[in-house]
């Protein structure tokens, strides 16, 4: 099956969350992704690597050795995209920075992931997701059970960056193939990722319209998590037109239908609504909201969505036979292309599983490969 990215080769020289996940998204749609790790394996690993490295080929390579760099160049010669996540300046020091690589391989799209970007005064700040959360201001935005900053429960900047990496790399590929014939440097960071998920409320104006007025319509906006019987939770949203009135009607609070909600009636309504859900099972609550055509969903524990009936129907979950941990149920394909359907290319590889295959394809003899292995280059 030919996917939209079939025929493209991506070199994945990353760790952490964004790079491996971004490269997975490209592999899912047809790209041949070669993940390069040091001969000793990933320095820091992540439970997500069994998923995020799926469908990739694995090559071990010591980039600090000149022979290792030479092998990398052979691979670069056939690649369309490189994704790297070295701290800014490190790739240059290794001799594989953008300038050097672009000179030799002008068609290559060189994609860099960093904490704060390749330029600017924050460039060398430490690059952990949690620290970027702190510096950008995410700890001030997360809802909590106490006052003060709240640590985010998932690495939001990293996931957002994964998306941005793919957007940047594909844009540059498209520009190369339709306009310029040349690759370029794509620069995106965890800070950029964080900002890409904050801009709904992160804007400022001279005349102070930042906090929009609570209009009577806004007073009909109920977006809340509700506890139901047996400690199960659901969440609902009355943002759609008429949703608030429909919910009040179906829950049986007809006195709130069609009347302006006030400072007194609103908290009273919330209190009564809370009590109603506590006295009903989640299924009953969701059924009521469905009848009222009010958006509502169960609040599920981590991994719960993978077992939702919708996930099976849409193949948002698939079973992949992993060589290290056996068959696992993991996220399936996300996008569907009418004319370029794809399937998951396979499991995550074992470390260095494809080193020989890819080096042979790059022209190395069995003897060369044995020498490289003896010298701990691969």
């Amino acid at each position: 099956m030919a996917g939209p990215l079939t025929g493209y080769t991506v070199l994945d020289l990353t760790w952490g969350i964004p790079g491996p996940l971004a490269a997975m998204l490209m592999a899912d749609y047809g790209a041949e992704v070669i993940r390069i790790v040091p001969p000793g394996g990933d320095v820091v690993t992540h439970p997500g690597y069994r998923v995020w490295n799926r469908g990739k080929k694995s090559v071990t390579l010591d980039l600090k050795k000149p022979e290792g760099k030479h092998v990398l160049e052979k691979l670069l010669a056939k690649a369309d995209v490189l994704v790297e996540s070295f701290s800014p300046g490190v790739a240059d020091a290794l001799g594989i920075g953008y300038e050097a690589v672009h000179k030799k391989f002008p068609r290559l799209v060189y994609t860099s992931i960093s904490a704060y970007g390749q330029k600017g005064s924050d460039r060398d700040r430490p690059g952990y997701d949690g620290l970027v959360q702190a510096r950008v201001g995410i700890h001030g935005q997360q809802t909590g059970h106490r006052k003060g900053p709240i640590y985010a429960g998932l690495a939001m900047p990293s996931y957002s960056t994964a998306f941005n990496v793919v957007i940047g790399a594909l844009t540059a590929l498209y520009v190369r193939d339709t306009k310029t014939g040349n690759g370029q440097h794509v620069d995106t960071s965890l800070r950029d990722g964080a900002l890409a998920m904050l801009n709904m409320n992160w804007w400022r104006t001279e005349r102070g319209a930042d906090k929009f007025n609570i209009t009577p319509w806004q007073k009909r906006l109920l977006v809340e998590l509700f506890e139901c019987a047996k400690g199960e939770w659901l969440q609902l949203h009355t943002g759609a037109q008429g949703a608030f009135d429909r919910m009040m009607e179906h829950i049986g609070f007809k006195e709130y239908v069609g009347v302006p909600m006030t400072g007194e009636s609103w908290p009273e309504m919330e209190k009564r609504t809370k009590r109603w859900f506590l006295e009903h099972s989640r299924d009953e609550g969701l059924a009521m909201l469905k009848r009222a055509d009010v958006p509502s969903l169960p609040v599920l524990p981590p991994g719960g969505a993978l077992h939702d009936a919708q996930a099976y129907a849409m193949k948002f979950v698939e079973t992949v036979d992993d060589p290290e941990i056996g068959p696992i149920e993991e996220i399936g394909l996300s996008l569907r292309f009418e004319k370029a359907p794809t399937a998951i290319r396979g499991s995550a590889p074992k470390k260095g599983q494809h080193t020989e295959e890819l080096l042979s394809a790059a022209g190395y003899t069995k003897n060369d490969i044995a020498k490289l292995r003896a010298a701990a280059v691969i």
Partner: protein
Amino acid sequence: MYALQGIKIVDFGIFFAGPYAAKLLADLGADVIKVEAVTGDPMRRSMGPFIGCQRNKRSLAVDLKNPDGQAIVHKLFKQTDIVCHNMRPGVAERLGIGYEDVKKFNPGVIYMHSPSFGTIGPRKDQPGFEPLVGAMVGMAIMSAGKGNNPVNSVANMDYGNGQLGAIGLLMALIHRAKTGQGQKIECPQMVSGMITTSELHWKKDGTLSEWFQLDQKQTGYGPLCRIYPTKSEEWICVVVAKEKDFQALCKTVGAPGLSSDLRFATKEARKKNADSLSAELEKLFLARTAAEWFKALDAAGVPCEISEMKGPDKLFGNPEHVQSGLVSVYPHSQFGTMREVGQIIRLSETPGNIWGPAPLAGQHTRDILAELGYTTSQQDDLKTRGIVNWPIEERAKVGV
């Protein structure tokens, strides 16, 4: 030349997720026409989200139920590369803007539908909305802290679906460049939410893969990856992964003995005695202000930051970021000078282009009609008959 200069998108997106996909491509240089009702997109009442996903677009306000209004949209279909929307399954078809309808005017079109759950399955007709989808994929419980009631996550999956949508459109553009074919893409919001927790997988024995659970006080993931209260109101965040950083931390907080204390001397010991180490460090961090700690820890090479609580003010006020384009500044017709998050993906040779804020309803109706060949008197006639709309002249003039 801007990266996506020349790419035309007709965006019927509503709420946030759908329009955000087109906005991301607009930021990279695509020409996006936002099609909305003559009375304006109802989402305009929710100004924050509206502004966050509509900038850099031109607005055409048109009545899709009127045949003359439909004729305008059909002309747009003929010359566009992409049409996208995120209505519930079946709604676009009823409005006459389904994939089959658009293909009649443009057989090579790229058409993206971003439904909440997909076009098949038990939830297909359910509306999505954030933060509901995020809570469903586990984010509300992951954000709660151990044993606590769920809370909404700061990571809102409207953004994630927009980002995934932008990826889908780019893949389809690449496919079209190779084959000449357009196609339909489906980009469901539920699965874009699942990408943000995609490390999770179920093993054969029925257990879930390891995931990092936030502590009960919502300070982080253990003594060496968390935020600490200090003598001042501000908190300090430290992430210490390397042995040398741990030693530097202990020294800087005035307790060098901690790193040789048998309870904390090795990684394994620190994991076992995490609560004691957290308690020790909590006491120590109360001795100085966050600013003092930052200075000392940073000088000692310990990875740390102060948790910024004031939103984007510092970032937006920094001339360095305005100059680099990370923050964009432009006039808004109603609010005066406006600052927004600027370019978040930098391309060295063909950059993106951010030229203005979210348009007023129908702000570009006249321009777009003129481009489609409508004369001024035809435009006026359409407006008089209520088929198209634009803002009163004064407001339009100050707009960008």
